[in-house]
Structure formats: C-alpha cells, structure tokens
C-alpha cells in the first residue's frame, strides 16, 4: 500500500466531497496510519473551535449610484460622505449669516464718529457737542424737567383715578341705596308669584299624598274586612264540623260532654 492521500484529498475528505471509492481509500489509509488520523482529528477540532467566531451584525449603508463617477455612501460613515456633509453645513451657515444680515439691514463700517454696527437704517449719531459743565447742567436740567413733567402727569392721572373710584364706590354702598317704588313693586310681585308657585306645588303634592294615603287605607280596610270575614267563616265552619262530629259520635259522647 503505497497510497498516501495528499492534503487536497484530505481536505475533500474532511468536507465529505470525495467519491465513495476515494473515501474508502482514505479511510483505510487513516486506519493504517494513526498519526495521520490524529492530525485529521486535530484539524476537525480546529474547525470546531473556529466555529465559535460569530457573525457580526452590521448596518447596511445605502448607496446612491448617480453615475459611474460618483457613488455616495450614506449612513455608515464613508469619508467622502462626511466631507460632503461638513462642507454643506459650513456653506449653509454662511448663507444663513448673509441672509440674516441682509434682512436685518445690518451695516458695519467706519463713520466719522468711529466704528459702527447698525441695524435697519444707517443713522449717524447726532453730534452732541462738547462735554462741558454748562452742557452737563443743561442736559441735567432738561432731563429733570422732562422727568418732573412726567411725574406730574402721573400724579394727576392717579388723582383722577382715585376720584373716579370714590365716586363709583359711593354708588355701590348699600346704605346709600334708595330704591324707587317701581323696583319695590316689581320685587314684591315677583316674590308673590314665587310664593304662589311654591304653595301651589305644595298643595298639589299634599293632595296627591293624601289621596294615595286614603286609597291605601281604603284598600287596607277592605283587606281587613275580607280577612275578618274569612276568619269568621273559618270559625263557623269549625264549629259546624265540630257539631257534625259530635252528632256522628252519637248521643253518648254528647251526653258525657254535657256532664
């Protein structure tokens, strides 16, 4: 037996891809050569151990196939995609800034009075003049005057309000309230009507209740009479049957009972 299976054949044997005859040949060889058999067993166990390595779950990215030159990989973090995303984000930010500036009519620039950032209208700050004692006094005077005016206005307003309130509050006092005849008449007639309604309702209910009570009583009385009659009849019947019994038993019994 010079047959010695090569590694390819052993692999095929391992994966059970040999023809029947070849398989038998390999098996007989393995029987004859325990070291080869051991080697094959080792390889088998290696396969088993390697089988412990499990599959990894992965998120499939979606590809946008535009043309053969551009393929965009989305989701999954392709470097091109990241670059595109950040570029777009920067561009969008700049656009937003420019648009905001445009809509708010922002203006930045050097004026005579210095560096100026302004919104809406490009107004130049009026030249306020020198900062001297007189000027400051005049400004303070102005400010005080306008402030005083404002305070006086406020005070007047408050006084007016107080007056108004006082007037109104007088009206609402119950003590000061003097009703005229019509109102009283109306009120009284209203109360009268209400009372009448209440009494009418009461009468109605009372009548109904009484009627019911009377009905019940009559019915009860009739029942009572009926029962009385029944009882009387029963008594009479018993008495009669007793008499009948006595008669049947004969005069002796009657006599003894008499004695």
């Amino acid at each position, binding site marked *: 037996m010079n047959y010695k299976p090569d590694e*390819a054949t052993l*692999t095929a044997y391992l994966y059970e891809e040999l023809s029947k005859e070849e398989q038998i040949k390999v098996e007989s060889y393995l029987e004859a050569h325990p070291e080869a058999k051991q080697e094959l067993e080792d390889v088998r*166990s*290696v*396969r088993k151990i390697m089988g*412990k390595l499990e599959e990894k779950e992965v998120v*499939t990215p979606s*590809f946008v*196939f535009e043309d053969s030159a551009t*393929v965009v990989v989305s989701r999954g973090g392709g470097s091109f995609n990241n670059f595109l995303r950040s570029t777009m984000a920067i561009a969008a930010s700049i656009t937003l800034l420019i648009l905001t500036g445009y809509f708010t009519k922002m203006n930045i620039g050097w004026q005579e009075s210095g560096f100026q950032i302004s919104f809406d209208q490009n107004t130049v700050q009026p030249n306020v003049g020198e900062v001297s004692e007189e000027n400051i006094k005049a400004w303070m005077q102005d400010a005080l005057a306008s402030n005083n005016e404002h305070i006086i206005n406020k005070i007047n307003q408050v006084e007016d309000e107080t007056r108004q309130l006082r007037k109104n509050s007088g009206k609402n006092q119950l003590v000061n309230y003097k009703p005229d005849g019509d109102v009283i008449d109306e009120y009284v007639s209203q109360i009268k009507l209400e009372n009448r309604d209440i009494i009418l309702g009461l009468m109605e209910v009372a009548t109904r209740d009484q009627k019911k009570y009377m009905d019940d009583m009559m019915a009860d009385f009739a029942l009572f009479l009926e029962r009385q009659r029944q009882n009387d009849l029963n008594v009479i019947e018993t008495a009669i049957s007793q008499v009948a019994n006595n008669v049947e038993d004969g005069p002796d019994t009657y006599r003894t009972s008499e004695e």
Partner: protein
Amino acid sequence: MHAESLLDIAMLHADTLIEKARKGDEKALNQLVSLWYKRIFNYVLKYCSDNDAATEISQKTFIAMFRNIAKLKEVDRFKPWLYRIATNFCYEEGRRIKRDKTISLTITNDDNTEHQAEAGEAKGNYFNPEKNFQQLELEQILLSALGELSEDQRTVVIMKEYEGLKFTEIAEALDASENTVKTRLYRGLKSLKEILERKNITKETVYYEL
C-alpha cells in the same frame, strides 16, 4: 452557502436582481448591497479584524461592484466575483498597513474586549455577562489567530469556514486551481491548530470554559 435564513435564500435566487443591476437599475443595485453587505463585511472583518477598515473595504467593494457589474459576463459567477473584489481590497489594505508599519494586522483591539463586553452588558442583550465576556475574549483570540495566517491561507479558511463557499467558487475568486485551494485550506487549518495551541486554546479549554 447554507440556506440558514431568509437572507441566504434570497441570495441564492438573486439572478434576476443581478441581471437588473447589470443594466444599471439603482434599486436592484441597492437590493444587492442589502443582500450581500453583511456577508462581505463579516468576510473582510475576519480578514483584517478591524471594524473601521472592514467598513471602508466593504464600501469600496460595493462601489467597485457598481462600476464593474456591467462587465460581469455570467450572472451565476456573481458570488465569486464579489468575493474576488473584496479580497483584492483586503490585500491592498494589508499591503498599505505593512508599508505604513503603523498598526499590526494581527494585534487588534484586544484592549477593547473588556469594553465591548461592558457595552454588551449595558445594552442588556446578553443573558450571561460573564459568558459573553469569555465569548468576546475568545473571538478576539480567534480573530488574531486568523490574522497570523498567511494571506492566501487566511482567505481560503474564511471563505470556506465562515462564508461557506464551494471550492470551485473559492478557486474562481482567487484565480487558483481547486487543488491549490484545498491544499491551502488544509495547511491553513493545520497552522491554525499550532497558533491556537500556542495561545492555549484547545477543544478542551474552549468547551470547558464556555
């Protein structure tokens, strides 16, 4: 391909979809992506054991798929063809990393193991946090063991063991003969055994620990 899920079944019957995609139907292309993305991602992840790189390579793969699907001659060759694209990107990435010498392919986010386990716990996804931690730890070791294989052996092992490709499909994807593929697989598994023994992972430790 083991038909384990609806997705797998859908993949097996995607011929008309591929036909449409070849004519540039965007919807069909995206459906193909959703059918295959998880597979390709997991394939690449096992190859380079780095999440970010796997994401990037998977996306590159599908972009390349989109650009070249019109050139695909036979619809039923789609699967090996797609794996071929992914593999080429994997090799490219491997060369780039080797050239840059910044990070090793093999030593990956080992430090993240604990962190990942905590994240899993926090999500409440797992019944047994300790077991889950061990599972994550084991997965890290297995991934790094795969990373120690040569490129050729690694691709074959992943394609056969995890992707369930037929030997003919692997041969086509790698432009090699079936016999070569089988030999590479056998050698790959044998070297894995040695690597795992060095890392103290044997059948016994795995099954007793877990």
